[in-house]
């Protein structure tokens, strides 16, 4: 059975949460199946609130959320099957790493606790530092020991809110391997991030959250393809803008070219890859010296903005 055909483990129906006049999550309906699901969105999009509602930590203003078909709020037995690693640090600095993971195991009534603690710490590769106090750990180490604390009871559902903050490249790769291994065992993992590439590397399915609304969901490649087709603005500074503008406008990949008041060229293109290849060649052919080439709307916010606006058009 593929992940797509498996029954949804997490189900949210018309889920909303507001804090006074601020709507954090707005009418979100989603299904999450076993495998790795990326929850992508800019800062303040409502990712943390959504994850906390799925874990049962935050109240729901309206709508319903279930995990394994059961309500999540005030359902203590469900806590044995779920783990959450929140964005902010939730460790006790005075404890050693091993004591912290052990405590998490005790609180979740883990059988054969010693074995489970060693396994969880081993999975995050912190055995060497396990007997040091957590307050002496680096940020990345604290993230890893928190992950060990979340894994100690062998949860079927793992909710990770911005788990890669503070992790170095090596740790990121280890983390990705660990998540893939967990997903291969049929577990359900939701990982949130505001960094597109971070999600792209691990997630099979993506939920795109913008301003509390679910802007897009589904296979990452389909969303990525939609992103690739969007028009990009590229700013070019050079010593002869009019000559370069006249040459650039001939390219098939270019939709429009304009000169800004500072004498720089702003190019609108639907095929940035092609533009990247052609622009240096054109400059060379026309004896133009390129000084700067800057994508103007490469930020995640503009990508989300495009998807949301595009969806409303």
């Amino acid at each position: 059975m593929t992940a797509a055909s498996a029954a949804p483990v997490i189900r949210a129906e018309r889920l909303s949460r507001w804090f006074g006049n601020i709507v954090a999550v707005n009418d979100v309906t989603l299904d999450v199946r076993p495998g790795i699901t990326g929850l992508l969105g800019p800062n303040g999009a409502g990712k943390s609130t959504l994850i906390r509602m799925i874990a049962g930590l935050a109240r729901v203003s309206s709508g319903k959320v279930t995990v394994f078909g059961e309500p999540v709020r005030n359902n203590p037995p469900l806590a044995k099957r779920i783990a959450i690693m929140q964005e902010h640090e939730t460790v006790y600095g005075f404890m050693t790493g091993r004591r912290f993971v052990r405590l998490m195991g005790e609180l979740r009534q883990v059988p054969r606790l010693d074995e489970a603690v060693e396994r969880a710490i081993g999975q995050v590769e912190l055995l060497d530092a396990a007997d040091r106090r957590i307050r002496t750990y680096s940020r990345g180490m604290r993230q890893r020991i928190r992950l060990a604390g979340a894994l100690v009871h062998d949860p079927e559902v793992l909710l990770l809110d911005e788990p890669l903050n503070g992790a170095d490249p090596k740790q990121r790769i280890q983390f990705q391997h660990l998540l893939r291994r967990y997903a291969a065992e049929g577990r359900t993992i939701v990982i949130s991030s505001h960094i597109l590439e971070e999600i792209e590397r691990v997630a099979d399915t993506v939920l795109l959250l913008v301003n509390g609304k679910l802007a897009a969901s589904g296979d990452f490649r389909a969303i990525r393809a939609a992103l690739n087709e969007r028009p990009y603005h590229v700013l070019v500074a050079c010593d002869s803008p009019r000559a370069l503008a006249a040459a650039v406008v001939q390219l098939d990949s270019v939709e429009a070219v304009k000169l800004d008041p500072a004498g720089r060229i702003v190019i609108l293109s639907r095929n940035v890859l092609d533009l990247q290849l052609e622009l240096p060649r054109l400059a060379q052919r026309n004896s133009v010296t390129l000084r700067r080439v800057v994508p103007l709307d490469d930020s995640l916010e503009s990508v989300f903005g495009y998807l949301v606006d595009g969806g409303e058009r």
Partner: protein
Amino acid sequence: MKSLFLITLRRVLSPARLVMTGCLAFAPFAVTWMILRVDEGASLQNFETFILNGMLAGAIIPLATLATARAGFGDEISDRTLANVTLTPYSRWKVVLPKLLAVTTVPALIIAASAALTSHMAYGADFTATWAVTLGAVVAVILYSTLFVWLDLATPHAIGIGLAYIVVWEGLFSRFIYGVRFLSLRSYSFSITHGMDDRRMADGDHTALGLSVVVAVAVVAALFVLSVRRLRTMDVP
């Protein structure tokens, strides 16, 4: 439950809290000792009015319990570790109970020692009087701790509201406005002291011992239930 008790106890036993509670608890003993050094015939009525009522019951017990009760939930809400203990297979009452026990045990022992030593010195080794004062003080610790544990869950301004309660309600209203004493935790602890030894705190208008015990138990039970309910309905940070 043992883990929850121990993790809370670790917070209660932080050096800052221990020093503060210890200093507060030592104050009535030190003041009584100094007064008796200066005036061996100091009146017991003055001791009860100023040391027991004004100092121990009016300031030290509520302040010490306000500080230690924060170790129950207030600290975990502030440092956002509450999710660690709520996302567990335990029912909410099993989370509240060990925390309440932990935040009550330490100040109860320290205050009991202070009350016992102070009254032993003031009453001249009168065991009944010492026992009555000590028991009343421990009851006050339990009542205040339960109140402040709930307050920490109920509001992010628990310290401010707790201090206002100590000064305005217990310090002013319950002493000077007739009828308010029936809603004062302090008056029930004094009634228990008086009920155990009717020579002590004889000036006040006390509730009967049996009724005081029943009310104290009811207050603790009600606040415990409120804490459990609050933990079930609140947003866990």
